[in-house]
């Protein structure tokens, strides 16, 4: 597959794997690692190793109270980590062109109402990920 335009990212949220893709307008799944210095006496340059990895996800969603808001509100009030999966090219089986990323997020915030008069109601999500991201898909 060549360069591509994102139009069909598949996103599930919660223990019931609820498909929320049709409400997602933007998504960023990212990882960063701490930088640990290992420079010692006698070194002529700074040396480093990778420390702990910290993962997070941000999303912009279109609001729908009976489905989206309830799903995220319930998870927020429960206060425990929630499973999520993300695939860049729809719900087809995971593969090198459609790798699946599975992880658990910790809902640390919740937006009940967001928008200006006349605008489509939206909701922003920015959650830290608890633990590692598991990537699956043949050749992925």
């Amino acid at each position, binding site marked *: 597959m060549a360069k591509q335009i994102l139009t069909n*990212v598949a*996103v599930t949220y919660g223990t019931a794997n609820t498909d929320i*893709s*049709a409400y997602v307008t933007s998504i960023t799944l990212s990882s960063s690692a701490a930088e640990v210095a290992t420079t010692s006496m006698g070194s002529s340059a700074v040396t480093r190793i990778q420390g702990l990895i910290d993962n997070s996800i941000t999303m912009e969603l279109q609001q729908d109270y009976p489905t989206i808001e309830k799903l995220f509100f319930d998870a927020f009030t429960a206060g425990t980590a929630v499973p999520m999966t993300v695939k860049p090219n729809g719900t087809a089986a995971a593969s090198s062109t459609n790798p699946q990323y599975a992880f658990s997020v910790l809902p640390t915030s919740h937006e009940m109402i967001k928008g200006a008069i006349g605008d*489509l109601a939206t909701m922003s999500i920015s959650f830290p990920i608890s633990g590692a991201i598991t990537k699956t898909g043949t050749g992925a």
Partner: protein
Amino acid sequence: MSSTTTVSQIKTGLAANLATVSGLRAYAYQPDNVNTPFAWPLLDSIQYNGAMGGGLITHKFTISVVVGRSAERTAQTLLDGYLSYAGSISIRAAIESDRTLGGVVQDLIVESASNISTLEANDAIYLAIDFTVTVYA
């Protein structure tokens, strides 16, 4: 809803809402005959891919309403009622009376009324007004 909703379904739904205005002839497509007052939706633009997987498609419509002969006082009075925010013949209220158009769209909003103008047909001058409607399917 969403990617399964057709433009025809939306036009039909808008016409059905317009038809709740007493005395107004509502059409899903531009009528051939000038038999005032009448209204019909004209699709201006579609924005695809408002959400992943065809989750939101935004349609912009202009709903044109031709009121009656511009010289007639009744036409001008009718226009006032059509343009009002609320009331028994408010076009805005009628269009938003069922914001899901019978369950085929997610939501809609009447953004504005503008372009109050005259148009000439059959040797007569008619009053006309355009309503801008955004439909989220």
